[in-house]
């Protein structure tokens, strides 16, 4: 199809630039709306968890990938969002359309505080500072029994739409989809405009960024706030879907999964975050399928499933870091380039 030419800057800045891109998008959306109706409850529940992971991973990628601020505190933001929803729903019976944004805001506020060390620390030291902050936050929600019911956890009711709770996984899927799409589009727009350019500038050369008028303090904190907001929204949807919340939902292992999503998907790419989130969420299910198939011959496998899962994450992270550091997004770009220049050979 060759190169696309544009007659105006507005056209060139459209999200989906060619008719091809728009057509593909329409097909993808149709599949996204249609296929779930054919899936069983088990696959649907995996899909719903993937949706949560997409929002969480995009948020984390904006901070780590786009702005270059290494954070290991993201799961704590997700927990803040989850607990905000659980507590406010139980005590005040507030509706989802208030609670989902409110959970984002509470997480964002905490993100602002956790982000303060980023003004002085970088890389490994920032990672440690955010991890320490996450442990403090975890300590609070695990021990503040009167508020969070500690390790016992709390029950959460599914959101209600038009008076009916969204009990089926299919209903929840359609409920969650607009949030996932909205979060994706918002992040995509951020990264291609002023704020996103400032973030990448800080990541690539902070001294240059500063001498071009970018206030590092402001934009680093904004990155933490936005990232934590995404985490909070993800946490809210997570507990709404699980119908329960307790400290064991927000472990350090989950943090490792999120890091794996970025590395597998593509650090610094929105689309990559989606690939990574879906891949890492589906992976244990695919593994479970394989181990179930092999169970009759090797019964020991299914018993060891949990350990296998952690080990496989580790292995995948290492393999991607070694052989495909740009993640699945890199493959995507290769395919896209091939398609755009087809049938001409591209050097």
């Amino acid at each position, binding site marked *: 199809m060759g190169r696309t030419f544009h007659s105006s*800057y*507005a056209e060139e*800045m459209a999200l989906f630039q060619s008719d091809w891109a728009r057509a593909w998008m329409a097909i993808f959306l149709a599949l996204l709306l249609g296929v779930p109706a054919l899936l069983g409850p088990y696959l649907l529940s995996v899909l719903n968890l993937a949706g949560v992971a997409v929002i969480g991973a995009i948020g984390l990628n904006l901070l780590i990938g786009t702005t270059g601020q290494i954070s290991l505190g993201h799961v704590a933001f997700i927990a803040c969002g989850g607990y905000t929803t659980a507590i406010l729903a139980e005590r005040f019976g507030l509706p989802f359309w208030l609670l989902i944004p409110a959970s984002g805001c509470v997480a964002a506020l905490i993100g602002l505080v956790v982000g303060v060390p980023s003004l002085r620390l970088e890389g490994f030291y920032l990672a440690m500072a955010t991890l320490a902050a996450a442990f403090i936050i975890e300590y609070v929600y695990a021990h503040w029994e009167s508020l969070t019911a500690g390790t016992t956890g709390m029950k959460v009711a599914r959101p209600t739409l038009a008076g009916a709770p969204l009990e089926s996984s299919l209903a929840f899927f359609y409920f969650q989809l607009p949030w996932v799409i909205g979060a994706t589009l*918002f*992040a995509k*727009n*951020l990264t291609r*405009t*002023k*704020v*996103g*350019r*400032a973030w*990448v*500038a800080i990541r*690539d*050369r902070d*001294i*240059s*960024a*500063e*001498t*071009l*008028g*970018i*206030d*590092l303090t402001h934009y680093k904190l*904004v990155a933490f706030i*936005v990232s934590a907001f995404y985490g909070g929204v993800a946490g809210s949807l997570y507990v709404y879907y699980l119908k329960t919340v307790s400290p064991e939902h927000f472990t350090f292992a989950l943090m490792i999964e999120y890091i794996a999503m970025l590395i597998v998907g593509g650090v610094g790419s929105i689309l990559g975050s989606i690939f990574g989130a879906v891949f890492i969420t589906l992976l244990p299910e695919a593994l479970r399928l394989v181990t179930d198939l092999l169970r009759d011959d090797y019964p020991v496998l299914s018993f060891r499933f949990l350990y296998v899962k952690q080990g496989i994450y580790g292995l995948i992270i290492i393999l991607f870091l070694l052989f495909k550091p740009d993640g699945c997004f890199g493959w995507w770009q290769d395919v896209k380039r091939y398609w755009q220049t087809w049938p001409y050979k591209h050097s």
Partner: protein
Amino acid sequence: MGEQTLLEAEDLHLHFGGVSALSGVGFTLAQGELHAMIGPNGAGKTSVLNVISGIYRPQAGRLRFAGRNLLDLKPYQVAQAGIARSFQNIELFQHMSVLDNLLVGRHRWIKAGVLACGLFLGRGRRQEIAHRRRAEEIIDFLEIEHIRHARVGNLPYGLQKRVELGRALALEPKLLLLDEPVAGMNVEETEDIARFILDIKEELGITILLVEHDMRLVMDISDRVTVLDFGKKIAAGTPQEVARNQAVIEAYLGEPHEAA
């Protein structure tokens, strides 16, 4: 002289531990002039630019820009006050396209926050389009249309230097600081840049402080010259005056490793 002073530096002292980078440097930049600052390696030229940009904080001295004390400002505030610069070693955003590098230069003019950017509706979108247009004007000015979508890290050195100049221009500065803009360039590239620098001064009316290591370009295009050696000002005046100055000749000839 009736001309207006844009920047005034007095008695700047800057040292790093025992190393003295600047000891009592002072100079003034008149509105609209092309002022060169020359001197052998290690003379303190880059340090002067870093002090003006707010990257280094001098231990003593005064620095005023358009009547405002610069020494209180952080680097981003200096930029917002209207001072842009290029670096001796290219400091571009390597992973961004040429266009995006220039758009980062537009940062202070784009009025949009997180919501406007994320929603990309109405005002946020109009702002992006308007500033895209301004970036294209700079692309035309510097004749880099053919590489506007290229990733900066993949460009040859000479073009990267030119993009860095463009990024500084995108800020629409009142004062432009250039740190050895032709270092490492061949004769043809050097002539191109010299032409752009003169155009920036004459067509855009921007005051320029040009740091150069090599005298030739400076003698050809600058209005006035300040000469530094070992962190001290040893001469100042028109290019002709400076070229005749005995201290300058000694500073340049007296430094054996300057032969190259």
